C-alpha cells in the first residue's frame, strides 16, 4: 500500500520507503513479523512507535488493512493507552515522574520549573522540536525520588536546579 499523503506541518515526510534517522523503514516490514491476529495489535503499534517515535495516521491505516480492522477501532485502542503518541516528540523527550513518593518530595516544583524553562506544558513539544515534556505516573524508582527521565535515562534525587542543568547540557 502506497501512502504519500497530507503532511502539512509534520516533521517527517511519509513515503513507501520512509527514511527516519537514516534507516529505511517500512510499516510492512514490521508487520510481517506478526501474525494477522488482533492479539498482535498493541505489539505492532508499540513496534511502529519504537521506529517512528509516534503513530502517524498513515501507519494506522496500514495496520488497519493488515489486521483487517477499522481505523476507528485502532484509534479507539491507541488513544486508550497513555503510551501512544500521535505527534512526533522533540529531539529530547523529558519525562517527570509524578508518583506518590516523587510528589511528596517535590516533583511538582521540578515540573513547574521545567515548564517555565522550556515554555511548554506536559504533552507538548517546543516549536523548534527540540524538547517535549511528559508527566508520568511512576517509574518504580521511588526510593530515589524525585525522578526525571531524559531520553530513557533515569536520573534520581533530582532538584529543579539539577534538572535545569541537565536540560542545558543536553542541548
Amino acid at each position, binding site marked *: 500500500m502506497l501512502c504519500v499523503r497530507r503532511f502539512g506541518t509534520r516533521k517527517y515526510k511519509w513515503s513507501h520507503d520512509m527514511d527516519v534517522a537514516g534507516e529505511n523503514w517500512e510499516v510492512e516490514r514490521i508487520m510481517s513479523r506478526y501474525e494477522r491476529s*488482533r*492479539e498482535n495489535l*498493541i505489539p505492532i503499534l508499540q513496534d511502529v512507535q519504537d521506529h517512528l517515535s509516534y503513530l502517524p495516521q498513515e501507519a494506522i491505516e496500514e495496520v488497519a488493512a493488515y489486521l483487517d480492522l477499522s481505523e476507528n477501532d485502532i484509534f479507539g485502542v491507541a488513544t*486508550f493507552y497513555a*503510551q501512544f503518541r500521535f505527534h512526533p516528540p522533540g529531539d529530547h523527550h523529558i519525562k517527570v515522574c509524578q508518583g506518590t*513518593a516523587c510528589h511528596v518530595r517535590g516533583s511538582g516544583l521540578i515540573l*513547574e520549573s521545567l515548564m517555565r524553562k522550556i515554555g511548554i506544558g506536559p504533552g507538548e513539544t517546543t516549536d523548534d522540536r527540540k524538547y517535549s515534556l511528559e508527566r508520568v505516573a*511512576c517509574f518504580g524508582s*521511588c*526510593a530515589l525520588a524525585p525522578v526525571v527521565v531524559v531520553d530513557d535515562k533515569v536520573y534520581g534525587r533530582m532538584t529543579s536546579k539539577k534538572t535545569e542543568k541537565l536540560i542545558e547540557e543536553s542541548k
Partner: protein
Amino acid sequence: MNFEKIREKARSEWDRFSRAGETRILVGSATCGRAAGALEVMNAFREELAKRSADKNVELVQVGCLGLCFAEVLVEVMAVDGCRVLYQGVEPRMVPELVESHVIEGRPVTSHALAVMGGPALDGVPVFDELPMISRQVRIVLRNCGIIDPTNIDHYIARGGYSGLARVVGMNPDEIVEEVKASGLRGRGGAGFSTGQKWSFARNAAGDRKYVICNADEGDPGAFMDRSVLEGDPHAVLEGLVIAGYAIGAEQGYVYCRAEYPLAIERIELAIGQMKDKGFLGQKILGSEFNFDIKIKKGAGAFVCGEETALMQSIEGKRGMPRSRPPFPAISGLFAKPTNINNVETLASVSAILEKGADWYAAYGTEKSRGTKTFALAGKISRTGLIEVPMGISLRTIIEEIGGGVPDGREFKAVQTGGPSGGCIPAALLDIPVDYENLASAGSIMGSGGMIVIDNESCMVDVARYFLTFTENESCGKCVPCRMGTQHLLRMLTDICEGRGTPEYIDRLRLIGDTVKRTSLCGLGQTAPNPVLTTLRHFEDEYLVHIEHGKCPAGVCRELISFRIDQEKCTGCRACVQVCPVEAIVGAKKKPHQINQEVCIRCGSCRQACKFGSVIVE
C-alpha cells in the same frame, strides 16, 4: 539432561562464583541503582582495573537490588582472601581508592563500608544480617535479589531454583493445589484472595484450553517490589508461573509487564530463552508429558490494566476496560477460556513454597495472613528501599526500626499504604499488626505493598487530591460511578485546597465516596475514594481548617499560604535569590531579604534552599 545433572552443573558454577581465591566485584544495577549512577560506577571499575592490568583476574558482575536503596550505588567487593565488604554511596571518583586499597592490597576501605557480607564484623563495620534494616526481615520472595547474577540461570538453580518444578511435574495436580492451599498464601496483588482456592477454580473449570497469566502491571505509584524481583530474580517468578500452568492444566502462559519497566522485560526475555535451553519450557518438560510456553505482553500505560479482566482485554488487543463478574476469569477469562491470573510476588512465593513445602511457609505470619510480604518504603523516611517482613509485624517496627523513622527531625504524620486504592494511617494506629484484616479495619488496604511515609510538611487534603487526580485520570470511563464520582470528588478537593470549600463539602465527600465505593464496576473505582475517606476519618481537622479558616496548616496549598522572610534570622546569603524562579526576592547582599508578595508564586523553592530556616510559611 535430567534435573540432577543440571543441578550438579549449576552448583559447581555457583561454587566457583562464591568461593574465595578470586576477586569479584558485584555492582547493584537494577533500575534504581542505575538511576543513582551504577553503570557509571561499573565503567569506572572497568577502566581502573584495565589501567592496573588487573582486569583479567577480577570478575565484574551486575547484580539485582538488595533493597537498601537509600545507600545506592551499592558495590560488594570480594577480595582474594574471601573478605566480602559492601560499600555504600559509591561514586566513580571513589573507585580508584577501592581498587587500590581493597582489590590490590586487600585492605577494606572502612570509611565507605556499609556492612561485611557473610563474615565477622570488621573495624566497626557491622555484619550485613545485623544491619537495622535487615535484621527484622525474612527474605523469601527476595531470596536471591542482589545476591545472584540475574542473567545466570545456574545461580538460581544452585540456590534451590527449579527443584520445586522438578518435584511437581509428575505429581497429581490436585496435590499441588492442595499444597498451595495449605501454605495459606493469599494473592499479593492487593485483594488477598487465597491462591490455592483460585487455582482450584481454574483447575476444575471445563475447557480444552486454559491460560495462566503473571500480572506484572505494577501501576501503583510508589510501588516497585515487582520490578525489583523481575530485575533481580526473574526465574523465581517464571518458575512459579510454570508450576501454576501445570497445576491448572494450561499450556500457555503470559507475562503482562508494564512498558515503563524496560530492564525487567529484557531480563524476562533472557530468562525465557535460558529456560528453553534447559528444558524447563517447551515440549515434554523435564521428561514429563507436560508442555508449556510463555509469551511476554508489554502494557501500554493504563493503570486500570492491573485489574484482571481489563488486563485480559488488553492482551486480546482491545481497550483495557474491565467487565462485570461473574463469569470469573477462572471460568471464562482470556479468549473466553478458563484463566488463572497471579501477581509477580505471589508467583515468586509459589516457587519457594513448592521447593520447601507448605508447612515451612505457613510457619511465618499470622493465622489468617501466612508468610511474608514485601513493601516498598519511600517518601519521608530515612532508609528508603525494599523490604520483606513476616505478616503480623507492626507498622511501627517497619517505619521506625527498619526504615529508621522520619529524617531531619521532622514529625511523622501518616503512612500511606496500598497506593491510590489504599489509605492514610495516622500515628495513633502505628501499633497495628500488618495483615490484610488489620489494614482493612484501619480503612486502608494491603495493596501491592507501596508504603509512603508522610511528615508534617505534607498536607493531607493535598495528598487526597493527588490520589484523586491520579484515579480520575486513570478511570477508564466505562461505569458512571467511577467516571463521574472521581470527577466530583476531585473538584471538591480542589475547591478545598484553593479556599472555595464550604462546610457541606465534608458530608458530600463522604456520601459520594461511599457511593463510588459501593457501586463501581471494578477494583479501581471501588477503592478510589479510600484516600479521601481515610484522610477524612483521621484528619478531618485539617479539612476544617482549610474550609473554615482558609489556611493550610502544613503550608502546602498555595492559594492559602504566603511566604515571608524572618528579618532576624536571614543572613543575606542569597541562596533564596538564586533559586527563586520569578525573581520575587529582593535585598542587598549580607542584609536581610524580603519577598515581593505581588510577584511571588508561592512555589516554596526559597524555603527549601534556606539553610537558616528563615523562610516562614503562613
